């Protein structure tokens, strides 16, 4: 190559707008004529708890000794109306994931891990299995639009009831479980033919709006003698109004799930483009509770992309009472483990990126109904891993709480936080670090 040719030619450059993933999606759509379906939550970068830091203690705040002074972590949920509120040892619960989307072994592992750490698990869109009830000391039973497997006996066996209005991965969308995972047992629990694509309703069959929901909640309480805490779970769409309306409808607990929250299967376009991130959702939900003078009276659980004790601590500092984890719990029990890299490669993906959970081929035996794959997951060992992970989250949470001088994690407060970006400062309502400026305020 002559010198002048080298100088005249720039290096090849791909468009930021049309990156490799985008190009591959256009080709995939052109070849198949159908949208992409996958599991998990939003994969794009969104403002999150990483954009906040704790200020720690110094002259005006006194820290607690890390290994000597106690820092409590318990939380009581359902104190508003329920005769039997739930007390959790740690403010970290396991989110609703169905038997059907997950193997029986995976559900058992979640129950074992949560129980070992004194916290709750949650059923999912497919009913309650006896194994799940047996392995979960505290179990939240979801009332979903599909009502698959819903029955009053299981309602009474539950420790709390969660009315699911939506989830963060797809606010406004119903569940989806494709035929590959509708095994005989899953089909029977859902009263559906085996092997069909199950597309759950996105609206409840017998109520519309908060006025109806109030009556629905009354009915659920009447069926369970007003014993069970009743949660209302919403996807982070309009969290200020959704939280306020949940309170109006009589919820004991409001669960707000941000767009990073996972799903078993939904259209990629829905996951990435509907709903708002967890960070602003917490702020808006807390604002609604405070304006109604219901903060701490109606408990707030936040979910969607919680990974570490730092995430938990920041959610609590912003005003949540507890958090819920789904994806992180699956990873803890073995999802996307590089141990299975050869098999992920055969599926055209790699460990850490595997999200075709709906296809039921999970090498880790978690998001599958294939008996051979499911048998790979030892529920006892996996449960122990989850317990370890939950324990680490709690230790990290306590570390941060002590560093901010708190003897109970619920005493963390917005004043302990600063934001690293203008976006996070605006969304979380905490000052940009090094300033007293909260965008949107004077």
């Amino acid at each position: 190559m002559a010198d002048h040719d080298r100088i005249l030619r720039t290096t090849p450059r791909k468009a930021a707008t049309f990156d490799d993933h985008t190009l591959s999606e256009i080709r995939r759509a052109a070849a198949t004529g159908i949208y992409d379906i996958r599991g998990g939550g939003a994969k794009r970068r969104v403002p999150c708890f990483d954009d906040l830091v704790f200020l720690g203690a110094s002259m005006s705040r006194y820290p607690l000794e890390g290994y000597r002074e106690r820092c409590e972590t318990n939380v009581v949920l359902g104190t508003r109306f329920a005769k039997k509120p739930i007390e959790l040892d740690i403010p970290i619960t396991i989110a609703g994931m169905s038997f059907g989307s997950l193997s029986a072994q995976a559900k058992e592992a979640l129950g074992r891990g949560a129980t070992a750490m004194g916290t709750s698990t949650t059923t999912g869109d497919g009913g309650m299995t006896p194994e799940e009830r047996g392995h979960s000391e505290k179990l939240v039973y979801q009332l979903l639009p599909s009502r698959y497997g819903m029955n009053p006996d299981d309602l009474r066996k539950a420790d709390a009831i969660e009315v699911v209005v939506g989830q963060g991965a797809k606010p406004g969308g119903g569940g989806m479980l494709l035929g590959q995972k509708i095994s005989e047992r899953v089909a029977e629990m859902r009263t559906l033919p085996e092997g069909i694509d199950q597309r759950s309703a996105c609206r409840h069959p017998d109520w519309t709006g908060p006025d109806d929901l109030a009556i629905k909640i009354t009915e659920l309480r009447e069926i369970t003698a007003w014993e069970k805490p009743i949660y209302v779970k919403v996807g982070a769409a309009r969290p200020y109004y959704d939280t306020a309306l949940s309170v109006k409808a009589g919820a004991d607990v409001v669960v707000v799930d941000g767009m990073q929250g996972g799903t078993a299967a939904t259209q990629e376009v829905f996951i990435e483009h509907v709903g708002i991130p967890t960070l602003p959702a917490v702020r808006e939900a807390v604002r609604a509770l405070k304006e109604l003078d219901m903060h701490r009276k109606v408990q707030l659980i936040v979910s969607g992309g919680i990974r570490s004790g730092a995430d938990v601590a920041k959610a609590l500092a912003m005003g949540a009472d507890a958090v819920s984890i789904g994806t992180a719990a699956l990873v803890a029990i073995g999802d996307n483990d590089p141990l299975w890299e050869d098999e992920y490669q055969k599926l055209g993906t790699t460990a850490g990126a595997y999200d075709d959970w709906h296809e039921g081929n999970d090498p880790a035996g978690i998001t599958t109904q294939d008996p051979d794959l499911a048998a790979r997951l030892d529920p006892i060992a996996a449960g122990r891993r989850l317990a370890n992970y939950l324990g680490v989250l709690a230790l990290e949470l306590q570390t941060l709480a002590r560093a901010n001088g708190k003897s109970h994690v619920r005493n963390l407060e917005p004043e302990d936080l600063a934001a690293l970006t203008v976006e996070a400062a605006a969304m979380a309502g905490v000052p940009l670090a090094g300033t007293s400026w909260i965008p949107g305020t004077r």
Partner: protein
Amino acid sequence: MSKSMSNVDVVDLAELELREVNARLQQHNGSEQGGHFRVINPNGAHAVACGLNAAVIVEIDGHTGYYAAGMNQAAEVTIKGNAGPGVAENMMSGTVRVTGDASQYAGASGHGGLLVIEGSASSRCGISMKGIDIVVKGNIGHMSAFMAQAGRLVVLGDVGADFGDSLYEARLFVRGSVKSLGADCIEKDMQDEHRDELAEILALAQVDANPADFKRYGSARKLYNFNIDNVGAY
């Protein structure tokens, strides 16, 4: 306050709170013991006689609000009047009878048992039904049997638009007209076995009608697995 009249326990919603009334009706839940109750002055109250789980007889003298006899198990509940939305929702077993009309979502997501509506029912009757049998002597509204999974819906009168939209394996029988069928719902042959099946349900419901006068509808099962050629139906 309750008064015993010839072995019928009379429960007055004008005097007692809903919780007290339901607690009284639910007192035999989970046991073999029966009982006979009459609820007076319901005045459209919601969630009356829900969560029953015993072979008790409950007569409600008047109109009820939302979710009367919700999630019923084993009990025989009669509403002598009209019923609000979601009557007998998620019923598991037993019988619920409405002598008047029923509002929306009658029998929604019912898993079993028999719901008889002697008048008409509004929209979404039998939505998401999962094994319940519903017999309506009058007409039913639009979007009835939407996503109906299992059980039988029998209508002596006429049916509104989009009947049986996206239904699964529920079986639908109609004597009158159907305004329009929803996605994947088709008329099917009415054979002897179906007439026998229908006669059995009508007898259980104590409804006098000739099975030969009915048409049968069910799922074409074309939407059970996603097929791009059906995209216009979604």
